[in-house]
C-alpha cells in the first residue's frame, strides 16, 4: 500500500496516508452533511536536495497537500516524517512527524520549511517595507537584531537579484517578477531545507517565468534545498522536477522520475493530461486524447477509481474497486488496475 523508500535514500520528508477532509456544513446548526475530500490518502516522499513536482488540475488537492504538511491546515489523518536536527539534544538527525508536532516543536520546525506563494501581490503585506517583510521571520525566530538583520537582508536581496536600496521600498513599487523575488528572499531568510513552492511562476509573464525558474534552480544548488513544486503547467514541472507526482481528485495516481513519467506514463490520466498540453511547434501533429466531461466532484467522487468515468480504458473493475497505489517499476508508482497491460503513450 505505501511507497516504501529504501533506507539508503536520503529521505527528507516521508508523507504517508495524508488526508485532509473539509466538512460541508449546512443549516442553522451548521450540521456537517458531508466532506470535501481535498486530500485523500496521499503517500509520497521527498529526497534531500531534490525537487518533487506535484501536478494536477485545479481542485485536485495539490495546494491543500502542501499546506497540510506545513500545518496551515490541520490534517484529518496520516503522517509526515521530516528529518531534522533541531529537536534532538545532541543535534543528531531524527525523523519527526510534522502532523503530530506540538506548538513549540512546530515553531522550531517551521524554520526548516518555507513556502513561496502563487500570487506575489496578495502574499506580501502592502503596508510593510521590503526589509520588514524579509526581517519578519528573522525577528519571530529571534535570529539577530539591528545591523545583523540588515546584513542578512542585504545578502538575501542580492542573492535573489534585487538591489540593497530596494529594502526601503514597498511591494507596490515592484513588478510581478520582482515581488516574487521578494517572496523568495523571505522564504530563504531562515535557511530552510524544504521549500514548498505553490504555483510560484504561474502569475508571471513568460520571460519573467524563465528568470524565476532559473533563480530557483540556482538557489537549490547553492543551499542544497529540497522543493515541493506545486503547479498545473506540465512543461514547467517537468523542467524543474527530479520526480513528479500526478494528482487527481485528492489522490496521487502516479509518481515517478520526471523523465520516466513523461516518456513512459503508466496511468491513463497522466497520458491524457500530457497529450492535452499544447506543444509550441506548429508542425506537431496533435493526437490529443480528449477527456470527456469534467473533473469529479471531491465531495461526491465516483465509486472505484475516481478517474474511471473519463477513462477510455475503463473496464468493469474500475468502477467497483479503488486501485492500489503500488510500485510497478523501481521508483515508479501508479494507482491503476490495468497499469500492467496498458501500453500508454508518452511525449
Amino acid at each position, binding site marked *: 500500500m505505501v511507497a516504501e523508500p529504501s533506507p539508503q535514500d536520503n529521505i527528507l520528508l516521508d508523507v504517508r496516508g495524508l488526508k485532509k477532509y473539509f466538512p460541508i456544513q449546512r443549516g442553522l446548526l451548521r450540521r456537517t452533511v458531508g466532506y470535501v475530500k481535498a486530500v485523500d490518502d496521499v503517500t509520497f516522499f521527498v529526497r534531500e536536495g531534490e525537487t518533487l513536482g506535484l501536478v494536477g488540475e485545479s481542485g485536485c488537492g495539490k495546494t491543500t497537500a502542501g499546506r497540510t504538511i506545513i500545518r496551515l491546515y490541520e490534517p484529518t489523518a496520516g503522517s509526515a516524517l521530516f528529518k531534522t536536527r533541531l529537536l534532538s539534544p545532541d543535534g543528531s538527525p531524527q525523523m519527526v512527524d510534522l502532523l503530530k508536532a506540538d506548538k513549540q516543536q512546530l515553531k522550531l520546525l517551521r524554520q526548516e520549511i518555507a513556502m513561496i506563494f502563487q500570487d506575489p501581490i496578495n502574499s506580501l503585506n502592502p503596508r510593510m517595507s521590503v526589509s520588514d517583510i524579509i526581517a519578519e521571520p528573522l525577528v519571530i525566530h529571534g535570529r539577530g537584531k539591528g545591523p545583523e538583520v540588515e546584513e542578512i537582508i542585504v545578502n538575501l536581496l542580492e542573492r535573489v537579484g534585487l538591489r540593497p536600496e530596494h529594502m526601503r521600498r514597498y511591494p507596490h513599487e515592484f513588478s510581478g517578477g520582482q515581488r516574487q523575488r521578494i517572496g523568495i528572499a523571505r522564504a530563504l531568510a531562515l535557511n530552510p531545507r524544504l521549500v514548498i513552492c505553490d504555483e510560484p511562476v504561474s502569475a508571471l509573464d*513568460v*520571460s519573467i517565468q524563465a528568470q524565476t525558474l532559473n533563480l530557483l534552480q540556482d538557489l537549490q544548488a547553492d543551499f542544497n534545498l529540497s522543493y515541493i513544486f506545486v503547479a498545473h503547467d506540465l512543461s514547467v514541472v517537468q523542467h524543474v522536477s527530479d520526480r513528479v507526482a500526478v494528482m487527481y481528485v485528492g489522490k496521487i495516481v502516479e509518481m515517478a522520475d*520526471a*523523465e520516466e513519467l513523461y516518456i513512459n506514463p503508466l496511468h491513463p490520466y497522466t497520458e491524457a493530461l500530457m497529450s*492535452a498540453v*499544447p*506543444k509550441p511547434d*506548429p508542425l506537431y501533429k496533435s493526437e490529443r486524447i480528449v477527456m470527456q466531461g469534467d473533473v469529479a466532484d471531491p465531495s461526491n467522487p465516483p465509486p472505484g477509481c475516481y478517474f474511471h468515468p473519463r477513462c477510455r480504458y475503463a473496464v468493469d473493475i474500475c468502477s467497483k474497486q479503488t486501485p492500489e497505489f503500488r510500485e510497478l517499476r523501481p521508483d515508479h508508482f501508479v494507482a491503476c488496475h490495468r497499469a500492467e497491460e496498458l501500453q500508454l503513450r508518452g511525449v
Partner: protein
Amino acid sequence: MSSGDTLVEVKDLKVEFDVREGIIKAVDGLSLTVKRGRTLGVIGESGCGKSMTARAILNMVPKPGKITGGEILYYRQVGGNGKPLITDVINITKLDPDGELIRQIRGGEIGMIFQEPMSSLTPVYTAGTHINEAVTLHRLIPIRKVGDQLVETIQAHRKVSKQEAREIAIEMLRKVGIPKPEQRVDAYPHQLSGGQRQRVMIAVALSCEPKMLIADEPTTALDVSIEAQILDLMRELQETVDMAIMFITHNLGVIAEMAEEIVVMYMGKQVEQASAVELFYEPQHPYTRALLQSIPHVGKKSRQRLASIAGMVPDPFHLPPGCVFHPRCSSFMPGKCDVIVPGWKQIGPNHWVRCLLYEEV
C-alpha cells in the same frame, strides 16, 4: 492575396491613454490584416497592447483610452441569396461607438470571447454599461439564466421569434458540447463549471454566425484538459461556418496549435510577423527568439537553465529611445539601437520584422 479575402485591415493604428502621469501609447502604429476564414494569432506579454488592439477593432477602447490614429477597415459583404455580392468598406474608427452600425457589427458580425466570462468585469465600466455590453458583447450576467442571455443575443442580431431563438440557443449549446442542453439552457452561470461557462460564451459569440471571432486569452483560466476541449471545439466550428479568428494569447503552445499567421507584439508595436511555421522555425527578431527559448518544452528533458530575457518590460511613461527592446536585447548594437527607431521591414514573402539587424543603417 486578392482583396476579396480581406475581412479586416488595420492600418497604422494608434491607441493612447491620457492619464495623470502622462500618455501611454498602448498601441503604436500597428498594421495587420485578417483574412476570411483564417486564423491570425497575436502573442505578447502583459501590457504589450494585444487586448487593446482587439478592443479597438470593436471600437470599444475603455476610457481614458482613445484611438488617436490610423484606420480599421472592415470589408463587409452584403447581398448574396441570388443578389450580387457587394463589399462595403467601413472604417470602424470613424463610427460612433454607441451608434447603430457598430452595434450591428459588434457581436453580430464580429464576436468576442474574453478570458473568464464571469470574472472579466472591468471596474472602469458602470453597471449599466456592463449589462448593455453583455447583451451585445457576450459577458455572462450572473443573475440571469444562460438561455435567456443567449436568446437575447440571438434576437438582437437575427430576426427570429423568442421561441425560435430559444431553439437556436439549445442547438448552439448542444454544438459546443454542453450535456443536456434542454435543461442547461435554464441554468444560471454559477451553476456551470468554468469550462462550461467558457463553452456558453463561445455559444453566445457564435450564435449570430459572425464573420470573425476575436478570442482574447479564451483558455488561459482553464485547466489543460478543458483547454484542449475548447481549442478543438473552436477549430471544428471554424471549419463548419467559415469564420476568421483573431486569437490573442501569451501561451506559445496554444498559438502554435491555433494560428496560421502570427503577429508578435512588444510595448504596443508589432516586432515580427510571419506564418506560424516560419515564426517558430526561423524567428528573426531577437525578442521572438528569446521568447521561444525561454519556455520549457514538455518531452524535451534538460536540466539546463532556460534562456531568459534579461531585465523587465520598461515603464510605459519612460520608454527607451530607439528600439524599445534594446535594453533587454542580446544583439544590442550601441550607437544604433538606442538611437534609431527601426522600421517595419519585409524580409521574406510573408515575413516582416522591426529590427535594425535587418536594416542598413
